[in-house]
């Protein structure tokens, strides 16, 4: 396959098609709508299922139903729509059926706006639905990565009978970049032993998330948790840039990490020994990679397009060993590289601190500027 120019949203849609997605259910919402629109054309063309649901609630439960048949299935939405899926996601997780969800984040809370943001990190990574469950969350930073991670999302969802989320922000959904599409996979013909497809020549099967007897539920909770340990052991992914000899480390996922790369390059051009760690799986979080960076570096900087959500996960690994600073733009604003460069320079000037919380110090800097 040659590299072609793809819009993020459409690239994800085509990647899903090629990964063998047999059914798509969604509801329009900016900045994700192109994905649904693409599917509305592409899926029927291939004789696969496409339904524009009555709502995100409808969509997530259509996904749930289709997932129970053992096929590959997906939905996509953006922040407020994803909030409406929380109950369904919790059910899917509790029923242990695989499903892929794409969240193209926008500014919030509430109706907010349709500009790019990363403020659903906690919602997606730490469980916006009720009960203990553990979604796999993949955070691409380029269209090619979005394509690759979409395919991976289907694989991981199946392997771990898990909800897998591709988490990106509106700018990545809207931008165009070259990407190479994966080959077209055939649709599944074999289905797992739990799939409810009609009890032909076999015992009937039931798929549910009810365990009315608490000890049964506890066993399930433990099973989910142990499976998650496996995911943590096997599936961590991240990317590092210029980290070999770095004295300072910048961390950020998705677009924030990508923008930080420009800043890191600019800083290197100034002679600052700084590297970048960009988590690709934000869940499972690359704990060991963060730990290694902390051991190596003198100070760190976390960059996000939210009020410091991944920051907390970084700080938990850091355990106050090295000073970390925080920088964010919120509300639909993508930071420019020069803003991050300024923060890197502060690190290099030894201005990072171990006192108090990095977010509080950032807030003070913001206030001082205003």
């Amino acid at each position, binding site marked *: 396959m040659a590299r072609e120019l793809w819009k993020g949203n459409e690239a994800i849609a085509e990647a899903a098609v090629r990964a063998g997605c*047999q*059914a798509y*259910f969604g509801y329009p919402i900016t900045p994700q709508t192109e994905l649904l629109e693409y599917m509305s054309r592409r899926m029927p063309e291939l004789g696969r*299922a496409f*339904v524009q*649901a*009555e*709502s995100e*609630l*409808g*969509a997530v*439960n*259509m*996904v*749930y*139903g*289709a*997932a*129970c*048949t053992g*096929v590959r*299935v997906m939905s996509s939405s953006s922040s407020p729509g994803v909030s409406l899926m929380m*109950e*369904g996601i919790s*059910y899917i997780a509790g*029923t242990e059926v695989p499903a892929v969800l794409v969240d193209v984040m926008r500014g919030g809370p509430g109706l907010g706006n349709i500009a790019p943001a990363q403020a659903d990190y906690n919602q997606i990574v730490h469980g916006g639905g009720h009960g203990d469950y553990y979604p796999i969350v993949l955070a691409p930073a380029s269209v090619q990565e979005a394509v690759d991670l979409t395919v991976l999302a289907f694989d991981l969802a199946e392997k771990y009978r898990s909800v897998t989320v591709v988490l990106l922000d509106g700018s990545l959904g809207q931008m165009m970049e070259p990407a190479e599409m994966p080959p077209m996979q055939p649709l599944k013909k074999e289905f797992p032993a739990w799939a*409810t*497809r*009609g*009890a*032909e*020549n076999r015992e*009937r*099967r*039931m*798929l*549910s*998330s*009810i365990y009315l007897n608490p000890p049964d539920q506890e066993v399930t909770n433990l099973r989910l948790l142990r499976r998650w340990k496996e995911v943590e052991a096997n599936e961590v992914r991240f990317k590092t840039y210029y980290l070999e000899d770095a004295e300072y480390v910048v961390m950020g996922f998705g677009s924030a990490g990508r923008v930080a790369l420009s800043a890191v390059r600019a800083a290197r051009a100034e002679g600052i020994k700084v590297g970048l760690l960009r988590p690709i799986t934000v869940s499972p979080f690359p704990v060991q990679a963060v730990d290694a960076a902390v051991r190596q570096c003198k100070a760190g900087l976390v960059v996000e397009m939210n009020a410091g959500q991944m920051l907390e996960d970084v700080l938990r690994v850091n355990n106050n060993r090295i000073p970390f600073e925080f920088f964010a733009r919120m509300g639909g604003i993508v930071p420019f590289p020069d803003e991050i460069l300024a923060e890197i320079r502060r690190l290099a000037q030894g201005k990072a601190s171990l006192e108090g919380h990095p977010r509080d110090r950032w807030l003070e800097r913001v206030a001082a500027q205003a």
Partner: protein
Amino acid sequence: MTTTLDPELEQLVYERPDSLVDCATHYCPGCTHGVAHRLIAEVIDEMGIREKTIGVASVGCSVFAYNYFNFDFVQAPHGRAPAMATGVKRVLPDRFVITYQGDGDMASIGMAEVVHAAARGENICVFFINNANYGMTGGQMAPTTLPGQKTSSSPSGRDIETQGYPIRAAELLATLDGASYVVRRSLHDPKNIRLAKKAIRTAFEVQARGLGFSMVEMLSICPTNWGMTPLQSLQWLEEKMVPYYALNDFKVHPAVAEIRI
């Protein structure tokens, strides 16, 4: 006492259907959820489609329906069974997909999902058990609770001024072009039970022919939360519910009318 028949002449008139699992239900004694289950199972047996049927259980007393039906089942979040059924059916168009939902489930929280499944003409059967309250959670007011009916959340009787009017779901769904077969039946006596079974059969035949959405509403009793014996409950159903919820065919697609069963 034990009646014995001439073993030579003895014939089996009625037997528990294969599509029911051989186990006791958790339903309260006399609860007509059991009757509805049995009728669906009988129809599936008669049509020989047990191995091709996938049920979608809802949240309500019938949440465990999947324990009793002897075919594949999934279990939907409260109100979302028609959406889940859509997901199943779109992937497996040659299977029979049914939902089994209470009035709280379908007519309250799940109103949007059932309306849209009907509007899409989704080729599924919805079996809707209207027992005028929320059985499972202890008898609160449902959208179907009658005016003046006392429930645990309308303790002085449903006040239409503040708590509104009952919803007649069959009439409402019948307004949708995608709905091919929408009827109301009752489970309060043998005659009506037989009519209900016929309607269930018709609904399955509608699905078999790809005619789209069908819904069979069944008036049902909840002796436990109504605070009556099962037999009193049947009478209350007949006297209070039937006048409010007309037993009628509200939508019958022309092609359905030709189905002979």
